[in-house]
């Protein structure tokens, strides 16, 4: 039954690709890289997820939406388990997700982590403006509208924008 199980798991991954982040509706949970594993045991399904930020209020909603989608597709005994280690990082975000973020108007996390350390007054990360693509931008605040974002402004088109900060 190994093969049948594999197809089933693939099907579940496809369903998970329809579950979006309530705060950033263009991103799915698979784009974000928070689904760590899918397990099937008899007729029970276990989805293992990892939180982005410990206090992120979207996590409860995400795990409820995962259960809902699976229940709608006739899965029974659904369990969503949260594991903390290894800790989630923006490196796990898919390229596809980063592209969608930019289109949505949020600058995606830079591929190379530049400021995740305790060095004081570090230079602002060079973040590209999602509106006009200029790199001529500056940070307004390290903390933004949600735990995962920082607030930037473009010096060329003058638009303020959110940056999904490296983590």
């Amino acid at each position: 039954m190994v093969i049948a199980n594999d197809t089933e798991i693939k099907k579940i991954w496809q369903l998970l690709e329809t579950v979006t982040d309530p705060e950033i509706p263009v991103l799915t949970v698979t784009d974000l890289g928070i689904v760590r594993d899918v397990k099937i045991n008899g007729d029970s399904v276990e989805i293992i997820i990892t939180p982005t930020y410990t206090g992120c209020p979207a996590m409860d909603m995400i795990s409820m939406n995962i259960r809902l989608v699976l229940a709608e597709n006739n899965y029974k005994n659904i369990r969503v388990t949260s594991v903390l280690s290894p800790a989630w990082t923006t490196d796990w975000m898919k390229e596809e997700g980063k592209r969608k973020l930019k289109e949505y108007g949020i600058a995606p996390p830079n591929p190379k982590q530049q400021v995740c350390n305790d060095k004081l007054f570090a230079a602002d990360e060079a973040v590209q403006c999602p509106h006009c693509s200029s790199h001529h931008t500056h940070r307004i605040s390290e903390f933004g509208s949600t735990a995962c974002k920082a607030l930037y402004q473009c010096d060329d088109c003058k638009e303020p924008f959110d940056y999904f900060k490296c983590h």
Partner: protein
Amino acid sequence: MTDQELIKRKLDYSLHLADTTLILSQRNAEWCGHGPVLEQDIAITNISLDLVGQARNFYQYAAELINQSNDKPIHPATEDSLAYLRTEREFKNCLLVEQPNEDWAQTILRQFFFSNYQFLLYQELQKSNDRQLAAIAEKSLKEVTYHLRWSSEWVIRLGDGTAESHQRMLQAIDELWRYTGELLNAAEYEKEAGTDPSLFQPQWLSKVKEVFDEATLPVPEKTFMQSGGKTGTHTEHLGFILTELQYIQRAYPDSQW
């Protein structure tokens, strides 16, 4: 020590970590809508949110320990019952975190002393042989790195700012320094089931010196240090915090959001 005793120590330790992060989260949240400028209002409440997230993880773990123990209660413990239905003397948070916000200087300094401590604590705790505590520390460390950098920069900005902001920082040091000793002095349960913070006391102090130097602020001489919070003897402020924080659950038991 028997297994049961070790579990009791581990429970005390988890509750200490949970209470400390919850109370600071509550204090910082008092700034919501009152920050000096919008960006910093958002910053301090973001930190508050990170801390309540950490508190939830520690409370969930503590509840698990209680429900698995030999003398488990009739109604299983939950993260909510531990946060909302324990009394002042049962809370094991450090005294520092329950101190009033007063002005922005005092709030910033409290956060800096605390984040400096938490940054070192979580670096150690992530190596713990208790896998759940290690995982929580590993997960939270990245957030704490942001808190430490933000609060350090603000200490410098205020200390090396105007005559008034400098004066207010001096006042804040005078108010808060006496509560920093307890942070770095281990209670029994920390030694036996957790990480002994006195091991990283020198690093803590050297960070304070580095930031205070830059901020043109003096590091206080050795002085009397207040303690007791870790074992349930608190300053008069905790009761008021809990009255507000626990009001709904006390007035309307088991009410749901």
